[in-house]
């Protein structure tokens, strides 16, 4: 394990391009999504709904990610979850552990973003639009974080903090495609809602494209 990570590290360091070093495997397929409450819309908009304590996107989307022992990425890019039209944009964000997320207020009103989720508790306090510096949080623990606004109770956002750099969000039809994956045996997971995650073991080969459906 240690050797492997070191090897990757060395390989990355030597080649300068880590992904090239680890091969070009691809997974694509479809996640079977729950029935949508509304017909899928073209503009790709969706929102977070809570039903019987279960948080999900509506229309449903899934986060598909590859679980394995991957080296911790350094220098992760900052992500953004803005507040616009009294909602979170995007409503669902998947990030790798350690990612910094900024919460710009793009509305004309105050917001107070906070989370009581076990994965990350934070409270940004009330801040006006165009607050500088933009309030941000670094998510250092894997898990699902529910974003709320203390002022606008209906606002919900989700951040799925993952231990992997390989993840994507499906479209409304459940289609996904993960690229630049390292070869090896992994578990492919699909987060469907706060209570449901499906998984499937996969074996990836360099240069090969795997086609699989979940579940």
């Amino acid at each position, binding site marked *: 394990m240690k050797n492997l990570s070191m090897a990757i590290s060395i390989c990355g360091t030597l080649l300068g391009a880590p992904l090239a070093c680890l091969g070009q495997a691809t997974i694509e397929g479809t996640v079977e999504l729950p029935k949508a409450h509304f017909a899928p819309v073209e503009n790709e908009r969706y929102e977070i709904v*809570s*039903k019987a*304590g279960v948080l999900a996107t509506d229309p449903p989307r899934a986060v598909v990610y590859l679980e394995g022992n991957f080296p911790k990425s350094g220098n992760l890019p900052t992500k953004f979850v803005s507040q616009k039209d009294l909602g979170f944009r995007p409503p669902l964000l998947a990030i790798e552990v350690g990612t910094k997320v900024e919460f710009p207020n793009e509305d004309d009103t105050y917001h107070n973003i*906070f*989370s009581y989720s*076990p994965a990350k508790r934070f409270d940004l306090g009330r801040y006006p639009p165009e607050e500088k510096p933009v309030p941000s949080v670094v998510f250092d623990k894997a898990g699902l974080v*529910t974003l*709320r606004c203390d002022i606008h*109770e209906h606002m919900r956002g989700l951040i799925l903090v993952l231990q992997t750099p390989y993840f994507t969000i499906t479209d409304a039809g459940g289609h996904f495609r993960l690229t630049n994956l390292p070869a090896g045996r992994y578990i492919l997971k699909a987060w469907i809602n706060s209570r449901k995650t499906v998984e499937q073991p996969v074996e990836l080969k360099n240069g090969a494209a795997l086609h699989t459906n979940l579940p």
Partner: protein
Amino acid sequence: MNLAAESRTSGIRRFRTKLLVAMMVVVSTLTSLGIFFAQRRAADDAGAGLQRDFELELASLHRLQDLRNTAVADRSRALAQNARIHAALEDNALDLLYPSAREELRDLMERAPPDEVDAAATLHAHFYRFLDSHGAVIVPPTGDAGALLPNEEARVAQPHLPTTMQTGYLARHDETGRPTIDEMIAVPIRSTETNEVIAALVLGFKPVETVPHGASIGMKSGILVDGKLQLAGFDRTAEEKIAREVVHELAHPDGREESLRTAIDGVPNLLFFKRLNLDSDYPPAYEVCVYPLDQLLALQARLRWQILSAGGLLLVGGFLVSHFFSRRLSQPVEELAVVSEENFAQRQRAEAELQTTAEELQRSARFSADASHQLKNPITVLRVGLDSLLAREGFPQEFYEEISTLIHQTYRLTGVVEDLLLLSRMDAGKLRLTLNTVDLTHLVEEWTDDLLAMPDAGRLQVETDIPEDLWITGEIKYTGLVVQNLLDNARKYNRPGGTIRIVAKRSGQQVELRVANTGRGIPVDAQPFIFERFHRADTSHDVPGHGLGLNLARELVRLHGGELRLVRSDPERTEFSATFRAAAPAAQASGVVP
């Protein structure tokens, strides 16, 4: 007689006693009825009044509770809209639940200034707890939510999350260790998105207190929960006793009277109780109001005394009045008794006498009638015999004169007998008059003519002063007899050559006939007896007569509704007056001499 008087007196005494007793019975009955009804009325009124007090008490309690419940419900809605509480509940950050609610509930938990007794004070919560999705208490991490013992917290929990507001009562001990009862209001917290009940908030308040309506009469109210009653002003034993009785009453299947009487420390009390938390999952609790009845009883006692004294006064008054009345009543009765007794004796005597008299009268009348009849026949026989002797020839002249005298005597005898017969008929009440109108003028004229025809009347002068057509009511036979008797009398007792004066006149409804003669007069001492039977005014003179004439005349006049009197009698003149009833002149004259 003495014995009779005694028995009479005791009878009157008995009567008086009976009267008194009856009146006293009436008065006592009225008094006791008055007491009975007044007391019952007072008790009913008081009971109804207390019941009304209790209802008012409950009503104001409910009004305050409603106020508080509304406030609490508002608070719960606000809590449900609180994103942090939602977050804490939904994200299972229960440790953050109470801190999140702290701000929201801070004002409820802050003590109101002690002098502020208003709705804000009733909104002061002793504790609050959240219930999780199973109805179990989420234990607060700090003491901000008010301290509760674990067993108390267990009683705050609900078997499942309430969907409506629920009221419960928690008997516990406060910080100072004194027993207290908290009113718990459990409100569901609904998700603002799905409207599902995701949790519940239970707030513990000091029970709503009202200014009791019955406080002035010492009413105490408390709450009974879990079989325990907390009633300010009563000791443990009394509380337990009341609690037992109420629980017993509640356990009774068809009890539910919601009121009962009980004695506490010897003081009778009226209890009212009513369930406070209907439709609640918390154990039933009851508002219990205890109204001491000592004031009511005192009132009743006063009332009883008033009525009793009124009754006593009434009784005394009744006694006096009845005494007075019984005396008044019994006095006439008493007198009546005496009088009736005397009367009875008198009557008995009178009756006996009357009986005797009647019998004698009957006997004498019968005797007279019998005697008259018995006499008439021999007289007739005698006269006929004498007549036949007189018709014979060959007797000396003196013999014929003697026989003539004898015959004359038989006529006299017949007159006497006929008068007696008439009198006896009158005495026996057997004489019935056939009344008619009689021409008195004519009658007097006829009898005057007869009078003057008498052998010894030749020397008498007759003066008459009678108006024409003087009519009277009578039977001509007997009125004629009266006139004849009076004229006969005037002739017989007149002095030789005297005057007979006959005057008649009408005055009003009466006709008076006066017949006067100029005889020697009737001695004064004899005058009262002239109308008596067989009385002869003067026996020393040879005046024919048998002493029945005036008596008969008077009886007949009286029978005609008049009176015969001696008007005057002195040596110059003796005058009789006879009155008759006047009559209208008849169409035909009917004055025929019999």
